[in-house]
């Protein structure tokens, strides 16, 4: 089962369902994400890569890992498109995570601008992975715009608060045919596991690892949680009762005709 169970994004196959987000970067974080969490995709903020010698995050990325440049810093579709093109010029490949924020306080994504940018970039041949606020209509628009995956937020970015938007993410999983990758707000392995059980295709996280006491150990915990959640989803969850209990011998078993 696990061998054939691939994550497919824009025609590219991945085995791992953990994606490292951008934000709180360090060499040790990237090492742990790749070695211990098994990440095959690493997000890269182009604005941080836009630097000279000693600092360049590109130098930290191990070979064989797929780079996912993001458009963080973009306030509208035009800026996101410019940043995506710059990423391609910098040699970051064709993947791009569209992130458009018109809010410096909560960093919530602007869905309308995200749809516009997705359409432009998909036409230019990018594998577009838009970060969005979970809204079914928007998700459908993103599919039509040519997105390769849809990335709803679980709770405000960096908050480690888990699946605050659970009900809405479930609707996206149920209704959208593209991979639904839960992005932002996942703070614990148990939350990652829960999202995977729901049928999420992958989990993106950064802060949960970056702020952990023991980075490699937390990275490994995420890997296991995501694998467990995925296996549970594939296995088909047993029923869960919301109240009361169910006798294994039916109460009406004595009835004969």
């Amino acid at each position, binding site marked *: 089962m696990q061998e054939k169970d691939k994550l497919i994004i824009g025609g590219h196959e991945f085995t791992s369902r953990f994606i490292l987000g951008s934000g709180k970067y360090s060499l040790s974080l990237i090492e742990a994400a790749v070695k211990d969490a098994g990440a095959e995709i690493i997000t890269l903020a182009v604005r941080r890569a*836009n*630097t000279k010698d000693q600092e360049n995050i590109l130098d930290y990325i191990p070979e064989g890992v797929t780079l996912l440049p993001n458009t963080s810093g973009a306030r509208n579709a035009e800026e996101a498109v410019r940043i995506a093109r710059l990423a391609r010029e910098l040699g970051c490949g064709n993947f791009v995570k569209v992130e458009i924020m018109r809010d*410096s306080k909560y960093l919530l994504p602007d869905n309308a601008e995200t749809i516009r940018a997705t359409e432009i970039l998909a036409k230019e041949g990018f594998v577009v992975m838009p970060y969005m606020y979970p809204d079914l209509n928007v998700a459908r628009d993103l599919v039509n715009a040519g997105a390769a995956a849809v990335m709803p937020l679980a709770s405000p970015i960096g908050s480690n608060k888990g699946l605050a938007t659970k009900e809405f993410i479930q609707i996206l999983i149920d209704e959208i045919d593209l991979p639904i990758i839960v992005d932002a707000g996942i703070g614990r392995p148990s939350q990652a596991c829960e999202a995977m059980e729901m049928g999420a295709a992958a989990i993106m996280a950064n802060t949960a690892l970056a702020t952990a006491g023991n980075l490699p150990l937390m990275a490994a915990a995420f890997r296991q949680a995501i694998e467990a959640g995925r296996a549970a989803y594939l296995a088909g969850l047993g029923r869960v009762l919301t109240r009361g209990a169910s006798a294994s011998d039916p109460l009406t078993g004595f009835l004969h005709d």
Partner: protein
Amino acid sequence: MENQFFIDSEFLSPEALEKKHRLETDPSFRKNCMEYLPGMEQISSDICEKVMEQWKTYDDSNYTAKEVKAALEHKTCSVEDFKALLSPAAEPFLEQMAQRARQETSRHFGNTVYLFTPLYIANYCENYCVYCGFNCYNHIKRMKLTMEQVEQEMKVIADSGMEEILILTGESRAQSDVAYIGEACKLARKYFRMVGLEIYPVNTEEYRYLHECGADYVTVFQETYDVEAYEKLHLLGHKRVWPYRFDAQERALMGGMRGVAFSALLGLSDFRKDALASALHVYYLQRKYPSAEFSLSCPRLRPIVNNNNISPMDVGEKQLCQILCAYRIFLPFVGITVSSRESETFRNGIVKIAATKVSAGVSTGIGDHESKYTGKESDGMQGDEQFEINDDRNLETMYQDIAAEGLQPVLNDYLYV
């Protein structure tokens, strides 16, 4: 308070000296500081009213340990909570405030500390601000760099590895006009990733022009939000117009700048009220311009050792730390810059709690980076410094020191789009 700053230069003519003394002693001789001068754009904005309403009614003696504890327990810090955290009642809770501030800083900025350096390109000034070394009555070496000199300075700074620059001038439109500053911005774009400006306030269209030249961040210090005190400290020149200065950041954002920075010079008036107004200036503008980036600085007048009676409003290190922690808890998403006016020890400590940006390789003089950075004797003139700095670490040392604290020095996290 009024007289502690007055200094007479022996180089002033009797007429100039007479005018200076009259400005200092005769309020009726001074222009109304609330009246705009010709050419100053007046925008329609409710921000000032909102900030000043809170400033007027804030009485820090109304807060007790009870309010401070409640503020520290609340998940979201309200304006009332912030007022409690700024009050003297919060002083015994400094360690708890620092713990909370550190959590917020880490949540929003991880363990990063941004580095930048200022570049003064001219020190001509038309204002008489009684506390400032650059003021027009002071006899200092005035200078304005030519574009060749500006480029040479920028090359030297860029060679040190710095990627963010803050261009400063004295406040003289006549000597350093917007076109001159614009040319400097264009040069800066060649050598740096991020270009900030700390110049006299200008109109929206001028900010737009400077943005097109490559600048993307504007810093304006209000000095004090206390208009009565402001009037007595800024006696002459366009800076005297308090409301035009207050609206500078909003004009900069209207002109397309990505971000704006704020501060009062803490200690010119009641520093708690000034800290409140500085943060609320950010708070209300952020609600109006949610996509903009914001940052706060924290220059201060220091107490004189063993003599608290001279300037009882001066700000000690503990009080400064309290203000910065309160800023961080109230506005977790804003940048906090701590300049080289603060000591190495203070800056090393505060970057672990609340500050997100520090300067390095600083000179506040004009045209002296080459001699300061390379030791090479300068063959040209150099202009005098605005103030003496306290932490003179160069970029390399600062970089290593930050990394040694377990933090991550960042030279750039910015794209000009």
